[in-house]
């Protein structure tokens, strides 16, 4: 199996806060890894290190065939890594000055020099795939939250990434819109996309994840198949966390 992400002894601080502590983690091709943990535990920071939105300080990180050096090191691989890694944000971060279709066409045209005709066709196909083919010419603000997040997924897919990062993709959504976004993610997982997902959707984690990772205060304290982690957590921190989130 090909390893898409390989973290070894990764550390990171925010000022005095030691936010990632000796993280060792590998993600295989086609694997769906769901990362859970309390807010402030470092789970978002962890996946933001993968595409260099956060810099780590020590250890090593490999993404696909590229090594990404820690802070202060040679970051020349970052451009290549970002071409191969798509990201979906909690707040969607769509470009409000561009139409939905233009949001999706921008990166392929700028980064890969894809022609407008091809980029346009790709955008239409992807919008169809996430179920909003009829919204192509609207502006993001005219769409519901769930639709916007689906556009954001399509936008990331347009770069044909080998890995998709999801940073709490449903946390900013009204409850009735969470399902439509999770459906798209579920499809993506089924098609074999390698995914790292930070989420509070435990149902999704149990159903879709190949592996669940629980992070507590910057450390991976539990890791395993979803059923094992959810039904039979070994670490008392995990037990406490799960009893709190699964109680309601």
């Amino acid at each position, binding site marked *: 199996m090909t390893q898409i992400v390989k973290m070894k002894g990764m550390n990171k601080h925010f000022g005095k806060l030691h936010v990632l502590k000796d993280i060792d983690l590998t993600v295989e091709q086609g694997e769906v890894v769901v990362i859970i943990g309390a807010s402030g535990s470092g789970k978002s920071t962890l996946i933001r290190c993968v*595409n*260099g*939105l956060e810099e780590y300080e020590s250890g090593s990180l490999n993404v696909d065939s590229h090594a990404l050096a820690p802070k202060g090191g040679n970051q020349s691989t970052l*451009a290549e890594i*970002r*071409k191969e*890694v*798509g*990201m979906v*944000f909690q*707040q969607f*971060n*769509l*470009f*409000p*000055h561009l139409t939905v279709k233009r949001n999706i066409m*921008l*990166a392929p045209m*700028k*980064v890969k020099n894809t022609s407008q005709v091809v980029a346009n066709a790709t955008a239409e196909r992807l919008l169809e795939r996430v179920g909003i083919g009829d919204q192509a010419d609207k*502006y993001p*603000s005219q769409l519901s939250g769930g639709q916007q997040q689906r556009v*954001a997924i399509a*936008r*990331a897919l347009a*770069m044909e990434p080998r890995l998709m*990062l999801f940073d709490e993709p449903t946390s900013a959504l009204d409850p009735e819109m969470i399902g439509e976004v999770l459906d798209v993610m579920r499809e993506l997982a089924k098609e074999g996309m390698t995914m790292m997902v930070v989420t509070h959707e435990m149902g999704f984690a149990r159903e879709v994840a190949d592996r669940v990772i629980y992070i507590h205060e910057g450390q991976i304290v539990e890791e395993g198949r979803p059923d094992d982690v959810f039904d039979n957590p070994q670490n008392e921190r995990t037990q406490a966390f799960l009893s709190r989130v699964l109680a309601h």
Partner: protein
Amino acid sequence: MEFQFQFDWQAAINSIPYLAKGIPYTLMISFGGLAIGFVLGIFFGLLSINKKWFLRWPATAYIEIFRGTPILVQVLFIFYGLPDLIGGPIDPLTAGIAAIALNSGAYISEVVRGGVQSIDKGQSEAGLSLGLSRTQTFWSIIWPQAFRRMIPPLGNQAIVSIKDTSLFSVIGVGELVRQGQVYIANTFTAFEVYFVVALMYLAITLSLSLVLRLLERRGVASV
């Protein structure tokens, strides 16, 4: 002695052709200066938010100096002071344009800085995560959004600069106020002439406000 003042409409109307000769100068100085000031403002505004201190520092110095000194002193310095330094005279029109450019440039730098900083960090993160370079992210994602937010304060600065050109009568550019002064020296109809001069400024600034409002409305519609 009885004092009676009557507004002399005829004198006001008669002054119009002579005063109107000042309008092209007023417009040339203000819009010429603002055009250069806009370029300076983008340049220094972006430098002022650069992470590197040696780029940020000169920009901050420029902004503070030209915001912190009166434009009248600036134009006097350029027109009377600089020739000593460069060893030759500067014509008043050039001095006026330079003063507006440097002065408005400092204020526009702050407008640019504010506009760019007002754009959510998530926008550049989204651009970078898609593989765009920092430069591409800035010019195709951040700048278009920031510019739209900059239109109202830029319009404000344009109106301020147009009015600032009235000070340049002191260096003898034949702009509106200067034309008025010369005309009054012959006719002694100060009240009427300055009234017309004021109306002419108002006509210019009101037209600009109107254009800006239309621009803003177009901009808002697509965001």
